[in-house]
Structure formats: C-alpha cells, structure tokens
C-alpha cells in the first residue's frame, strides 16, 4: 500500500509541475499589454515602460516562471494589479463561497443520484426505471445556467422564498448562508446528478448479474442486504470514478452559475481578472483550480486502492 501511495503522490507532483508551466505559458499568450490596460488610454509611453519594468514583464520568461513558481510553492501568488491586495488572500476569501457551493452541489448530487440509480436498477425495465431515466435525461439536456434562471423565476421572483442571488457572507448565520447557496447548488449539481444516476444504475446492473450475487440470493440473504451490502459496495468503483471527475467539473461549472447568481466566488474572480488583464490573479486562480482537480483525482485513485485491494498490486 505504501509504495502505491508514493507512486501516486509522485505522479501528482509531476502533473502539478506540468500544470503550472502550462498555466504560466497560456497566460503569457493572452493578448493585451497589462501595463497599458491598467494605465488607460491617456498613458504616456514612458509610464507604460516604467510600469512594465515594475511588473517584471521585461525580464526573460524562464526567469519570470522560476520566480513565480518558487513563490507559489510558498503560498505567495503575488499581488492583484486591479485590487492591490495579495492574490492568495483573494482566492481564500472567494473559496468561502465556491467551496461550500461545490460541496453542497456534490452532496445534493450524490444524495439524489445514488438512491435514484439504485431505484432504477432494482426496477430494471419496469416503469419506475423508465421514469427515473427520463428524469435523468432531462437533467442532462437542461443547461445549468438556464435551470438556474428558472429556479430564480420560480423560487425568488414568484414565491419569494429565496433571494435572487448574491451571498451575504457567513456573518449572518450558517442558515442564511446555506440558504443563499441552495438554488445555485441545485442548478450546478443538476447535470452531474443525472450523469451519476445513470452511472449508478448501470454499474449496479452489471454487478447484479454476477455469480456471487446469485449465490447470496440462493443462500437466502434478504434482497435489501443483497443490494446494499454485496452489490452496491462492489459497484462503488465506477461510481466513485465518475463522482471524482465530477467534483472537478462542478468547480469549473460554478463559473457560469456564479455569474447567474452573482456570487462572489472563484469563477467570477477569474472572469473579472481576465478582462482586466490582472495576470497575477488569472495565474493564481487557474493554478489553484487545476491543482485542486489534480489532488482530487489522486485522492480518488488512492481510494480505489482501499476499496479494491487488487488495484494497488497492479
């Protein structure tokens, strides 16, 4: 097990290095001189040159990368050009929205998708199965931002139960904060919920055909126990794989929903930073999100090892 974990961690670090290089290069390729955009239309060429110097944009690219990556490892992602505050602080404050939003969406997704998948699989080719699959088809077809708008129209504009958007922070109580994240979390998790329900259904159907399930049934184990104790546990690997990938997708998908619900999260930070050519922030956010996804994937990999001992000896 230890060798397996070490190998996974090494692979993860290598990926992170590659990701950081990619982020750095891609951001360099973005058109538009940040110094010029910061100073505005009346700036003299002189002050633009001075600012470029100050931002370190004139030095060789490898030197810039080495410095940036070196400091990033220590948690220093530079200062925002636009806001004039440390990037790391901005990311942390935005995470207090995006992270609970993503986790809430993930929790809702898992809590709804797995029971629905089990429900469908145990009613294979009966009306319950068809109804559940139609429902999930709908979830796949409806884009999240549109679902978000519909939810706002119904629950905020018509019924007035929820605010139409925005996040007042955690200062006004956990309940208030969770309430303002509920609609966006539902809209965000909808698509992933549908995919996960389908995955659960097919994974479970696969396992239910296996010999040991038949054996368990023949031995007189109650149907409930057969499904939850024997079958579902073994169906968890494909479900977990999909769910792990989805967690990353949820994080990325939150960019659009943060705009619809005007939540001050990471996604909107990135969007705003791109249009303002706030290079340190763009680099910081992209690096952070990419790293988070790499780490999640590595964690899922290691979980496989726990769930299925065969995997770690491959």
């Amino acid at each position: 097990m230890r060798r397996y974990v070490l190998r996974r961690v090494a692979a993860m670090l290598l990926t992170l290095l590659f990701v950081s290089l990619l982020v750095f290069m891609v951001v360099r390729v973005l058109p538009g001189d940040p110094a010029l955009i910061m100073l505005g239309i009346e700036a003299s060429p002189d002050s633009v040159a001075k600012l470029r110097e100050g931002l370190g944009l004139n030095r060789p690219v490898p030197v810039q990368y080495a410095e940036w990556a070196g400091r990033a490892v220590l948690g220093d992602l530079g200062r925002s050009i636009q806001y004039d505050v440390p990037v790391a602080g901005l990311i942390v404050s935005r995470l207090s929205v995006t992270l609970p939003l993503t986790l809430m969406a993930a929790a809702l997704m898992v809590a709804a998708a797995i029971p629905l998948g089990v429900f469908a699989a145990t009613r294979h080719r009966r009306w319950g199965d068809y109804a559940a699959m139609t429902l999930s088809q709908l979830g796949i077809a409806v884009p999240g931002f549109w679902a978000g708008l519909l939810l706002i129209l119904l629950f905020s504009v018509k019924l007035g139960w929820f605010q139409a958007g925005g996040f007042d922070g955690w200062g006004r109580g956990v309940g208030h904060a969770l309430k303002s994240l509920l609609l966006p979390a539902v809209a965000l998790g909808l698509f992933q919920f549908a995919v996960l329900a389908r995955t659960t259904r097919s994974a479970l159907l696969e396992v239910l055909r296996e010999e040991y399930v038949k054996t368990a049934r023949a031995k007189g184990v109650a149907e409930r126990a057969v499904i939850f104790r024997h079958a579902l546990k073994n169906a968890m690997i494909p479900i977990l794989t999909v769910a792990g990938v989805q967690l990353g997708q949820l994080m990325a998908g939150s960019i659009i929903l943060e705009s619809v619900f005007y939540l001050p999260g990471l996604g909107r930070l990135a969007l705003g930073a791109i249009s303002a050519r706030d290079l340190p922030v763009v680099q910081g956010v992209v690096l952070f999100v990419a790293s988070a996804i790499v780490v999640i994937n590595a964690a899922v990999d290691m979980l496989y090892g726990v769930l299925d001992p065969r995997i770690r000896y491959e």
Partner: protein
Amino acid sequence: MTMLRGLALTLLALLFAAAPAAAQGALTVQVTTEPPGLDLTTNPSSAIATVVFYNVQEGLVKVDRHGKLVPWLAERWYTTDSRNYTFFLRKGVRFHNGREMKAADVKFALDRAVNPETKHPYRVQYENIQDVIVKDDYTISVTLKRVEANFLWTVARQGSVIYPREAVDSLKAQPVGTGPFTVADWARGDRIVLVKNKDYWQKGLPRLDKVTYRFIPDPNSALAALKSGDIDVSAFGLGPENVDALKKDGRFQVILGDTTNDVTLSMNNSKKPYSDKRVRLAITHAINKEEVLKGAMFGYGKILGSNVDPLNPYYVDVSKREPYDPAKAKKLLDDAGYPNGFEATFKVAPQYYYTVRSAEVVVNQLAKVGIRAKIQQIEWGQWLAQVFCLKPCENPDYDMSIIGHAEAWDIGNFANPKYYFRWDNADFQALFKESEVTVDDKKRRELYVKMQQMLADEAPAVWLYMHPRLVVTKKGVTGIWKDLPIPSLDLSEVGWQK
C-alpha cells in the same frame, strides 16, 4: 432515523428563517461593473465615478442634475479674462478624516493633476494650467497659459475632485473626500457599502444612512434581483427591451432621460474607401437611424446628427441635414467608383450590448446599397488595441466600428487627427481652436452650430443615436437624477418617500 429527520427539520427551519427587513434609510443599488480601484485621479473608468463621484468626493464646481455648472466647494469665483480664475472656498467644509479643507489641499490636487508623474487619466485637460497660487486659506487663484472658455468644466470633471494631502496614497482602496458618504466596506467582487457622513457640510443631506452597491453583470440576474426585491435601484444594468413591461408593473418606476453618450459609427478615415467623402456620405445616406433605434434600442434614445448631444447648451438638431436616402447613397457610391459596392468589416466589442445590436441593423441596411459588411466581435482589450489604437499602435486597424462616446464636450476629438477616426480637416480644426478661446457666449454658440453642421456635411463618422439613461427603481425611491450630464450616480438627495 428520527435523529436524521430532526436534523433535516432544523436545517429547513434555519433556511427559511425570515431575513431582517430592510431599513428605510438604506438603499441597494445594482451596477454592472465593479470599479477597478476607487481613485478618480488615476483611472478614467466611469464605474469609479458611479460610486465615488459626488457621493464620496466632490470638486470646486459641480455639474448639477440639469447639466448646469453650480458653485460647490468653491462658493463663488470670478474671472475677467478667462485666463485668471480666483476661487473662494466654502468655510467649515471637513474631510472625512475630520480636518478642514483649505486652499492648500486644492493646490495640491491641481498640481498633482498637472504633474506627468502621477498618471492622471485626463492630464491633457490640465496642461493649460500655468500656476496655482494660494492667496489665503480660503482663496486660491489659477493662471492659465492661454484663454480657455471651458476651464470651469475642467474643474467640474471627476478628475478634479479635492482630497486631503495626507490621504493621497490610500485613494485607490479608501478614498477620502468631502462628500455625503464615506466608504465603509468593499467586499471585492460583490459589493461596496457607503455610510452617511454625519458631518456633511450641506445641512439635512444625505437622506440615506447607508448605500450598498452590488455588482451584477448579467442583465437577466439584475432583472430577477429587482423583481424579487433584493435590490432597490438598477442603475445601468437593464436593457431597453425590459422598459415596457417594467413601466406597466406598479411596483416600479422607470426613469428615462438623456445622456452625453453618443453611439457613433466610426470609420477609419485614413483608409480607402473611407478617405473619400462621397463614400462616407453614401454610408450616412444608407442608414435609416429611426430603424436602428427601433431595432437596437426598442425606440428609446434620440436620433443624432453630430457629436453634440442634447444635454449640451449649444446643441442643434442637424440629423435632417443628410437624411436617409438609399438612392442618393447608391449614386454617391457610383461617383466614387464603387458601382458594385465593396466589402467591409465591423469590429465591435460585445462588452457593450448595444454595439452588436446596432451593427446588425446597420449591416442589413448597408447591404441594400451594395456594401457587403460583416460583423467581427472582438474582446474589449483587443478593441482598444486595434480600433482605438492605444499606444504604441501606429495606425488603427479597422474599417468601421460602433461605440458610445460618453464624455461631455468631446467635439475636440474631431479636431484631433491622431484620434482613431483619423479625420484631418484643417477648417474644422480652426473652428474648434477658435471656440476654445472664444469667451463670448453668443459667438461661441455660433461656432458650435457651425461645427455641428460641418460634421454632418463632411461625415467623418455617422452619429446614430444618443444612448438613453435608463434607471429602474422601486416605487417610493425619490431624488434620482433624470438625465446624466456627467458620469455619476449622485445619491446625496436620494431617499425613500415618507
């Protein structure tokens, strides 16, 4: 299971706990863009003016809601020759840090605007200042290099706000001034909160205790927020397509007014075929502006014939001088050697919704006289680099574009051959120069009328329409400006009806 159910119920109860009712002295305003910093003296962004100008910081002279110059931090001034101005400051005006405003602060602010080291965004406007002399604590005189008829306008602009010397380094995050509100909190990406300045020098103002600016970029979200009661005022966020429905909704009031924002179809006058006056006139005659206004703006706004907007005191309507006439447009194209028309590209930035909408209508109309134009949407940074030709750009790279020119008194752009229109006309430049040094109001008006007529006839650009001011508020909000003669969202007199 019972425990789980109990937990779920508690959670539900928490979720639906009533939000505290909004106080009558509080107002939540939606704006589309978050300001890039809060310093009016280093960044020209109008998103900054929307929050800071007149609310947090003020100048010697104010542009009031009707577009008139009125005494403000200077209670009066005099000039005999429009070259030497003396300002008498109001006594007892305190900055937010408690210190009284004195003439030395005014000198500091003006000197800083003139200084090329300080990145002032409109430094050109201050270049004419030769000397600023403090006579005593409440008297200051400004000497100009040459006569400037519009100098009081310069002093009234957002770049001329007065702030205390000791706070100059914190302007970007914590602007200090003399205004009716102070900045209490800026949750970046989400909101800016202003609170009442209890020591405001104008007695009885402001009427609100607290103002919250929320940044909601998406127009659908802004509309939903308004309808669900999350915001009280939508200042710039809603498109004209919502106006009719909102007018009928008894919960809201719709304020429609004039602005100085002239939506202009620019042409690259340095490039063929736009260097040919006949081609430019042909394009002018090919465009049915009524239809553009209807198609792009649902009819809200006003048709323009030149760069001068209806809020300008010298405005005359020249929109009928070169009217819609496709037959004439075809003939002009024939004369210019383009009997079969030509190909063209519109470069527009979708960041401003009206640009793409207007271009779509215009492209259709141009096709009817044989000009085959296509629309290319480019991102704002690219627009600034390619079309607007930000330094170090040598020559603008575009055929035609559409953008709103929001500045008041900006006819001088057409007297500047380096501006991205690249229109170089000596007669017009002479007229403009004369208007700058003509102090007599009647003579100056004549010059402005001449300039407007000349712009219409020479067609260096096509002035499509004035972008309307559109504000939607909850019923009961009073005191909001109808027109927008200067970029600001002055909230000092805004309040709730009792």
